[in-house]
Structures are given as structure tokens and as C-alpha cells.
């Protein structure tokens, strides 16, 4: 018996209409315009002036662009491995339902809930200040702390610490993955005499790699776009000496402080290219280490 279609095709497009309009008006057209602006000089007061690859050439020579890429890359590639490692470790430790575990999970998740807020960024600024609580605790053991936020060598690390601190959300994702692994496999392994340690590396970790991979991709994409901590902690400047100048912050300064909309658009497209390239690399490397059932 031929199955009847559940709906008329036009009905489906009717339900998709808001999304289709949104896709066109808030994504496709803006992207086309943005690409066009990136080849122009445009200050919003006068009409855009075509300058070809001028913005991209200027970017390649702009030391602050290179510096901001370096700062952002350090933030992403130093912070995320630690973030995911902590998330995995705590997920394994808090996997078994036992007394207090639900409460502990909540405790470790809370930084992720609050971490993106302006309030916590402001708090971070105080915590790592010259008179901040970290230095006062260090003073108890007779260590003379410095102003971590205002020292070029350490300012970025306080931001990285802020991102590692928020490992809780990844931990929750891993917990979800761990709970899907059938208990039978572990029992079979135990009968065969495998230690818990060995079971982790030969069973848990391989089965969890698809989830780790997905998490890695999404976290990297998001981290490249981080803005609030850099803006709040550096007071909107990327100081000291550009050591916390995130790429997005420099883009913001160009576009919305100096009204170099063309230059900022070019920066946005380079960001897209960087994220696209790194995502493609991660997908390429995934074949080597991500375990798929089928």
C-alpha cells in the first residue's frame, strides 16, 4: 500500500516561513553585504568606497591584528584542553550515583551558569587585583603577589583560568554520555580480569570520543568568539600592552569605536576563515582518534 504523504508540501514551507525569512534577512543578505563592505572603506557617514583587497592587505600589516590572533589562539588552545580534561575527570568521578553526587554536580556546574556574566568578569578583575583576594591569601604564606591583571605576562592567564573554571557544562555533557555506556561491558571486562584503570582507557574513553569530539568543536568555535571577559577585565582596551586583546575585541574597537566598518567586516571574514579552517582540521584529524560504532 502506498503511504500517503502526511502533509501537502506547501504546508511545510509555511511552517518554515519565519525561519526562511530570518535566514534571508538576518544571515544571507547581511553576509553578502558584509563581504562587500570588506572590500570598501566605510565609516557609515559617507557611502562605501571600493578599495579592493585594501583592508585585507592592511590587516596583514597590522601588528595589532597579528597580536590579537596570537592572544585568541593562546586563549583557545591553552584553555580548552584543561577545560575538557577537568570535565572528563570530574564526570568519571561523579558518574556513580552515590550519596551527595547530585549536589556535587551542581556545585561544579555553577561556574558555567554564572561565568559568562558581566558580574563574574568584574569579580575576576577584583580577585586578581594587586589588593585582590588571591594576593591576600598568598600573603598568608609570605608570597608577595603582583597585580595579575595589569601585568602583561599574566593578564591573559587570568582569562584562561576563567574559561577553565567553567568546565561544568562540558562535564554535564560527558555525564550524559557516560550514562549511555552499557554496564554489561564493564562487567564482562571485570570478569576477564581488567582493572578499573584499564577499563577506563580501553572502554570508557574510546566510547566517549564522539562526544569529546563534538564538545571540542563547539567549545573551540565558541571560544574564538569570546568577548565579555576580555572587554570587562581590560576595561574595553585589551590592556596591558594588548596582552588581552581578543580578536573580537579588536574587531569591536575598529567597527564601533573608530567606525572602520569596512575593516571590521574584513576582520569578520578572516575570523570565519580561521574558524572554518580549524573546524575542517579537527574533522580531518577526527578520523584518527574518534571511535564510531558502525
Amino acid at each position, binding site marked *: 500500500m502506498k503511504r500517503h504523504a*502526511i*502533509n501537502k*508540501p506547501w*504546508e511545510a*514551507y509555511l*511552517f*518554515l*516561513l*519565519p*525561519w526562511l525569512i*530570518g*535566514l534571508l*534577512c*538576518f544571515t544571507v543578505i*547581511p*553576509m553578502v*553585504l*558584509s563581504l562587500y*563592505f570588506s572590500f570598501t572603506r566605510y565609516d557609515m557617514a559617507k557611502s562605501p568606497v571600493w578599495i579592493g583587497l585594501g583592508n585585507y592587505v592592511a590587516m596583514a600589516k597590522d601588528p595589532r591584528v597579528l597580536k590579537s590572533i596570537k592572544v585568541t589562539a593562546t586563549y583557545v588552545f591553552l584553555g580548552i584542553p584543561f577545560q575538557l580534561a577537568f570535565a572528563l575527570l570530574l564526570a568519571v568521578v*561523579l558518574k556513580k550515583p552515590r550519596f*551527595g553526587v547530585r549536589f556535587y554536580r551542581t*556545585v*561544579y556546574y*555553577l*561556574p*558555567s551558569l*554564572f561565568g559568562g*556574566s*558581566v*558580574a*563574574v568578569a*568584574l*569579580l575576576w578583575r*577584583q*580577585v586578581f587585583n594587586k589588593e585582590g583576594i588571591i594576593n*591576600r591569601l598568598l*600573603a598568608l604564606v609570605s608570597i608577595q603577589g603582583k597585580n595579575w591583571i595589569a601585568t602583561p605576562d599574566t593578564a591573559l592567564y587570568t582569562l584562561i583560568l576563567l574559561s577553565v573554571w*567553567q568546565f561544568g557544562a562540558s562535564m*554535564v*555533557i560527558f*555525564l550524559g554520555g557516560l550514562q549511555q555506556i552499557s554496564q554489561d561491558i564493564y562487567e564482562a571486562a571485570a570478569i576477564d580480569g581488567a582493572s578499573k584503570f584499564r577499563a577506563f582507557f580501553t572502554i570508557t574513553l574510546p566510547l566517549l570520543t564522539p*562526544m569529546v569530539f*563534538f564538545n571540542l568543536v563547539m*567549545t573551540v*568555535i*565558541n571560544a574564538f*568568539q569570546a568577548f565579555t571577559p576580555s*572587554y*570587562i577585565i581590560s576595561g574595553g582596551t585589551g590592556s596591558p600592552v594588548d596582552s588581552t586583546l581578543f580578536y573580537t575585541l579588536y*574587531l569591536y574597537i575598529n*567597527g*564601533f569605536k573608530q567606525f572602520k*566598518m569596512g575593516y*571590521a*567586516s574584513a*576582520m*569578520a571574514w578572516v*575570523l*570565519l576563515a580561521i*574558524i572554518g579552517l580549524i573546524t575542517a582540521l579537527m574533522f580531518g584529524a577526527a578520523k584518527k582518534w574518534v571511535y564510531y560504532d558502525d
Partner: protein
Amino acid sequence: MRFKKRASALIFHLLIIAFGFSMLYPLLWMLMASFKSNQEIFAGVNFFPKAPTLSNYASGLKGVSGYSFFKFIGNSFLLAAACIIGNIVSCSMAAFAFAKLEFRLNKILFSVMMLTLMLPFHVRLIPQYIVFNKIGWVDTYLPLIIPKFFATEGFFIFMLTQFMRGISNELLEAPRIDGCSTWKLFINFIIPLSLPGLMTVAVFTFIWTWNDFFSQMIYLSNPSRFTVAVALRMFVDATGQSTWGALFAMSCVSLIPLFAFFVGFQRYLIEGIAAGGVKG
């Protein structure tokens, strides 16, 4: 043997608690500091306030630029409410089409939607700002709200599509045979069955809107329209570092709604994170 088991359980709890406490220490310290005098905040390492005072809250709630902090809290709530409605309506419609309706471009359009998830929003930001500026929407809430009614949050479409795919087709067949229209099917069957998913959308929209700083800073300039995030930053600029106490008090106030939502809707939050791998 039993003793050994108990001892290892004790060590487990001690370690977990110690590590957890050190993680929450900055937040707890801020909470305590909000009840301390400004002199006490900058002196010593005592955790609990020696003479608890509410003066920080009193001076903080006065707000900035002549507007009380309650005004900013109200603004943030209104904005979040509008975004929640927009996201729920538009994303559930799109998700229904992707999950349950048959049309030729289903797979292709779904891939396009997934692709938009990976785009950095900066490639859309500047033209959007320029257009919103031209039509006089800058310094209103419209640029922050209207896109939500057009399903611009791809993640929620993805999540709801996954959710609706889980609704069994047999369940929908009976009303179909009875001649139920597609629209009625959506309203009377899909929406009620998707309620947990829609709750997750609402909770995440609230958290993201509450924490969002970048777009609110770009689009809002009149203090009467400030949200909590923008007002907190203004507060620092206006008063400097001399009033950390009041700042901490307002920071704590700004985190209360987040915490309340978390406690009230923890289940939906956890399910949402597990379903799609987003950050809270």
C-alpha cells in the same frame, strides 16, 4: 575490608568538597563581601563579615544615572520574556517542519540550518547594525527581539527537531485519519508533547539573554533602557573602584535570577545541555 571502604569514601568526599569549595570560593567571597564595609573588603582575609551591613545593597540599588537598579532588572526580564516567546514560536514551527513534515528540500535545508550554527555572528553583525541604525531601531529593544521571531537561534531548532523526532508517528496517525489539519496537528498534538523541549528553550533563552553583554551594549545607549549586564558595567565606570561593596552587592543581585532559574528548572537545563552540547 569494610574499614578500608569507609576510609576511601571519606577521602573521596573530602577531596570533592575541598575542590568544589575552592572553585566556588570567589563567588562565596563576593557574597560575603557584599555584606562588608568597604574598608573591610580591602583588608584582611576573613571570610565572614565582622559586622554585617546592608548598606552596600542600599547604595547599589539606587543604581546609576538616576535609575534604580530595579529598573534594569525589570528591563532584563522584559527583554528575556520577549526573546523567549519569539524563540519558542518560531523555532518550534521550523523544528516541526524538519522533524515531521515531508517536503523535497528537507535534508538540504536542515544542513543549511546546521551550517549557520557554526558561523561566527560577526559576519552578520556589521550589516545588521548598519541597517538597524538606518531604520531607527538602534537604542530600542527591537534589534535584540525581532530576529528571535524569525528563528535565528539555530541551536534551538536543532534541539527541538531532535525532540520532535522522538514523538512516535503512530501517535500522530490517528488524528491524521480523522482529518485533522497540519496546523491542528501542530497545535493540539506536537506542542503539548514537546513541552519539556520548549521549557528547555525557555530556560536557555533566559540565561543567554540575561548574560548577553555584547549586543546589548552595542544596541542600547539610553540609561533608561539599560539591562542588568550593561548597567553593571556603567556602574563601574560611574563610581570607579571606590565602591566595590555596592558593586558586589549588585553583582550578587544580578546573579539571583540566574540561580533561581537554575534551581527551578534544573531538569530542563541538564537535558538541554546533554541533548545538544551547549554551554549554560
